[in-house]
Each structure stands twice: as structure tokens, then as C-alpha cells.
């Protein structure tokens, strides 16, 4: 992991110099840590950043970025496990507590907060990520089991600022309201495209004895195959329309009647 901190802008230096003077040196030398970030968020919510709007905006926007997270030593945790794996194609090495889930590792250690913690018990799908090409639940995956694997999260779907066609389709069809389930829905739908291409069957497939590659999924098939992703806003018709459009490449209408 790259441990060199990104230099602070002038505005950020003034911000931290005024608001956290005792921590400024540390921030300059070792980078913005989670605790600094959280303190800043606290000050923002208390309305204390008025004199530092530009600096605060810059600092908050950078969040806690990948590479600026302090690594832990094996002695700092009771059951440390060293894991080397790829996250969105970047080789990543991280020391985790054996209890740490992949979801918590992505969010809390690697700063990738796109994957969401909904239920944390494998019942909602908000934490869906793609591991070695297959969609899985990161809340029920121990980070320790990811040694050597390749993880794709919502942050890794766009290529060079160009959205994945599934992301485009979700935008076009309003495949969300609050957005909390959306990254899980999209990761799930992207993997679903691969499954359909491979001719994988589902519980609603009429005859599983017939084999056929490159399936084009109807509404019922999409609903069944996406049932592991719950949307409490009920954007299901829009989600189904988005997936159909991404799969066929043709413009589709929402179908409010059959789902």
C-alpha cells in the first residue's frame, strides 16, 4: 500500500491549523486519518467551518482515500491475518482481524464506501460485490478468505470516467429512489449479465434440462434472479427495465403490471 500522504492544499493547511492545531504536524507528515476526518465532519455539523469553506470542501471531498489508511501490525490485533488481493484491479495488502468481513475491510480500511451495509446478515444484498467474477455478499465473506482473489466493487465498474452500461441504464430508468441499495443492485445486475450469457438457469426457468447459451431474460426471470437485492423504496419496475435495456441494448418501457 502506498503510504505517502497526499500534500495538503493551502486552504486545507489553514483549516487544520485553525481548527486542529495540535494535529497539523501529524496530518502533514502522515496524511489525513480517519479520526481527523471524523472530527472535521463533527465540526461541519456543528456549523464551525464557516471561515474555511474552500479548505473544508477540499478536505471533506478527499474523504479517507485508499493509500492513506494506516496499516496495522500483526501485534496490534489479536488474530491478525495478512491478506493480499486485488480490489478493482489494484493489488492490495492489508492486515485484518480474523473477524473482519470483506464489507468492513472495503469500507473501513480501504475507504471504498460504495458497498453498503444494509442488514449485515445476508438478507438484503446491499453489500453485493463481485469476487472472481461472481456476485457474492461481502457481509458474510471474511476478508481472510479473500487471499489471492479479485474483488470488483461499484467503484471499479466505470472505466476511465465512462460509466458501465448498467450504471447508465439505472440512471436512465431511475432504478432507485434513496439509492442505498443501488450499488448492490448494480453489481448484482452486472454479474447477472455474465450468468445469462453462460446460460445459467433459475427456479423459474421452465425446463432446466434444455441448455441454451446467451439467454435473453424476461421480466419474471430478472425478478427471480435479482431477488437477493431488496429495494425498500420499491424501484423494482425501474430496475427490471434498466437491466432489460442493458441486456438488449434496446430502449425499453417500464412494465408496471407484471412484477
Amino acid at each position: 500500500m502506498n503510504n505517502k500522504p497526499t500534500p495538503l492544499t493551502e486552504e486545507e493547511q489553514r483549516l487544520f491549523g485553525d481548527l486542529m492545531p495540535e494535529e497539523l504536524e501529524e496530518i502533514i507528515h502522515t496524511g489525513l486519518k480517519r479520526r481527523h476526518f471524523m472530527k472535521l465532519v463533527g465540526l461541519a455539523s456543528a456549523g464551525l467551518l464557516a471561515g474555511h469553506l474552500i479548505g473544508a470542501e477540499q478536505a471533506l471531498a478527499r474523504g479517507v482515500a485508499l493509500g492513506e489508511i494506516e496499516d496495522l501490525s500483526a501485534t496490534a490485533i489479536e488474530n491478525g491475518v495478512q491478506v493480499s488481493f486485488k480490489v478493482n484491479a489494484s493489488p492490495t495488502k492489508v492486515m485484518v482481524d480474523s473477524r473482519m468481513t470483506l464489507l468492513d475491510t472495503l469500507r473501513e480500511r480501504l475507504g471504498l464506501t460504495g458497498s453498503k451495509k444494509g442488514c449485515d446478515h445476508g438478507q438484503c444484498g446491499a453489500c453485493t460485490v463481485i469476487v472472481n467474477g461472481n456476485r457474492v455478499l461481502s457481509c458474510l465473506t471474511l476478508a481472510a478468505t479473500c487471499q489471492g482473489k479479485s474483488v470488483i466493487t461499484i467503484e471499479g465498474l466505470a472505466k476511465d470516467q465512462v460509466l458501465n452500461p448498467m450504471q447508465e441504464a439505472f440512471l436512465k430508468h431511475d432504478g432507485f429512489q434513496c439509492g442505498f441499495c443501488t450499488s448492490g443492485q448494480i453489481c448484482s445486475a452486472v454479474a447477472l449479465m455474465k450468468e445469462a450469457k453462460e446460460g445459467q438457469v433459475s427456479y423459474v426457468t421452465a425446463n432446466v434440462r434444455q441448455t441454451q447459451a446467451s439467454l435473453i431474460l424476461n421480466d419474471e426471470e430478472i425478478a427471480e434472479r435479482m431477488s437477493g437485492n431488496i429495494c425498500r423504496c420499491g424501484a423494482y419496475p425501474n430496475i427490471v427495465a434498466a437491466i432489460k435495456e442493458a441486456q438488449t441494448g434496446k430502449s425499453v418501457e417500464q412494465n408496471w403490471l407484471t412484477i
Partner: protein
Amino acid sequence: MRPFKFTPAGTAAAAVRLLTTNTKAKYLAGGTNIIDLMKEDVERPNELVDLGELSLTEIIPLVNGGISLGALGKNTDAANSPLVRKNFPLLSKAILAGASAQIRNMATNGGNLLQRTRCSYFYDVAMPCNKREPGTGCAALQGINRMHAIFGCSDACVAVYPSDMAVALMALDAQIKVMQPGGTERAVPIQDFHRLPGDQPEKDNVLNHGELITEIEIPVNAFAGHSAYVKVRDRNSYAFALVSVAAGLVLQGNQITSAHLAMGGVAHKPWRLSEAEAFLKGKAATTSNFNLAAEAAMRTAKPLTHNQFKIELGKRTIISALEQALKGDSYTG
């Protein structure tokens, strides 16, 4: 979650050795159930022996027309294997009826068999539960028991076993191959693998500590073209069964040579519908015979306060599964 040591195992024999030396260690396969139970503080291992590197993932055709599923193969791969789809579509359908795509991508064939009950009192550590804490009592017996058993329960436990896959394996007469401490192997027929609760509901199955499922063997069958898995649940997908039925019919014209029937969601184990099977043998495959078979199947059911409905639902599900199986490959929903 309580702290635990994470130990990857390189081979099945090494995994068995690791568990033999630590009575508080557990195996980790797909993790979809045990990680959840550890978060809930229901399972409290001090060590997880990770089976992720083991090679027991293959699906192998057997010389006599049967098939062997590696215990660590993923449920998705078993359900989509061309061999399983062609010769054991009942198994394919049952696996696909369970959980979600994400969970089936993680869950293993062996781990699926070792799922623990989803009884809400088992999950809630504030409640008494003889399965979780032997001797504390059963909260479901007098509590909300709508989801619970109607066959084979005891005063100690009325929980149901949740797997769909195992219901199909029961109708398919599978054998569970197990590696024992010391490296020897034994095979357990599926009907003997899971237990009824009796006065030891903490024991879900006949495995001893350290024993590891290595393969699931399924013998050849003559009902691939006439089988069905019908699951009834509170919502259309991603829910555990209220009642499910696996059905296979071996037919000669319209005459039933043999019927293969098992039910899920009704007992502490996949429930073989032996009375219905015996009734249907040699009979004509007609709706009236299916009705009589369903009556015979449910005759010994004993409902609790809130699950009386499972008896009628069970009958209808049996009839529906038999009718679908009769139509076979031409069934279109």
C-alpha cells in the same frame, strides 16, 4: 463476534486433524450460515478451519450412471452443471429454489447439508432454546410456531431443517461420504444423515466432531424426465419454505412403477413421504390417486398452535408436485 483463530487447511486430512485437536474449532466453507450465526453469538468457535483451498469441488459422473458432487463445490455450479441438469433436474431445481444468486455462489454442497434451523428462538440468544443451550427449554413450543414442524418433533424442539437441496437429495436416495478422524471414510444414506430432535436437539445430524463431508453421491434414477420441486413460501423468492415437495415418478405408460417423494419445511430433517410412495406404487397416475396419496402422506401430521395450515398446504403441494412431475419436460408453469 468473539475472537477466533483463522487457520487455512491445505488438504481434507489436514482439516480433519486440525479439528480433532481442538473441540471448539469449526469448519468454514461458504460461510453463509456460520458467519451469520457467529455475528448473532449463537455459534462461538475459537478457531475456524478454512476449507477454501481444498480441491473437493469436482462434479464427477460415476460408472453406473450416478454422480458425485464434491462437498466444496458451489451450489450454483451444481445447479448449472450440464450433467446435473440433464440427469438430476430435481436437484437443480431444488438448489435454485433456495436463497439468492449471491448466496448460492458462496454456499457449498456440503455446507448446505449442515445449515442450522432458522427458528427465530434459536437465533435469539435472549430466549430459551434446547438446540442452542441444551436444558433451557423450547420457546417455540408455546410461542409463535407458524414456521415450525408438523412431523417428528419432540417436547424439546419443534424446529424445522431449512435446506431445499437436501429434500431433493432425499427423493434421489443420495449418500453422504464423510472423512473421519484418522482418515478413514464412511458413507451415510441421506435418510440417516439428519436426526429427529428427540431429547438431543442440539445434534442436527449424525456427524461427530471433526468429521468432514467430502462428497455427495447420487445413484442413477429413472425419473429425470418426470420430476418436480415445488416450494411454497411467504414471498415468491428468497424465503425459506413453509412447505416444499420433491417428486419423481417412474412411469410405464400411465402406470406408476415407483414414486419418489420428500417434503421440506415440516420436520427436523427432510421428510420422506413413505406412505404416499407406497400408495402410488403400481397405481395409475391420476389426480384422484394423487389426492389419496396426499391424504396418506399427511395422516400422521401433528400441528402446533399456529401451523395447522401446513397440513392442507402440504396436501396441495404434494398434488401440485405430482402433477408437474407427470407432465414432466412438457410442464411450462
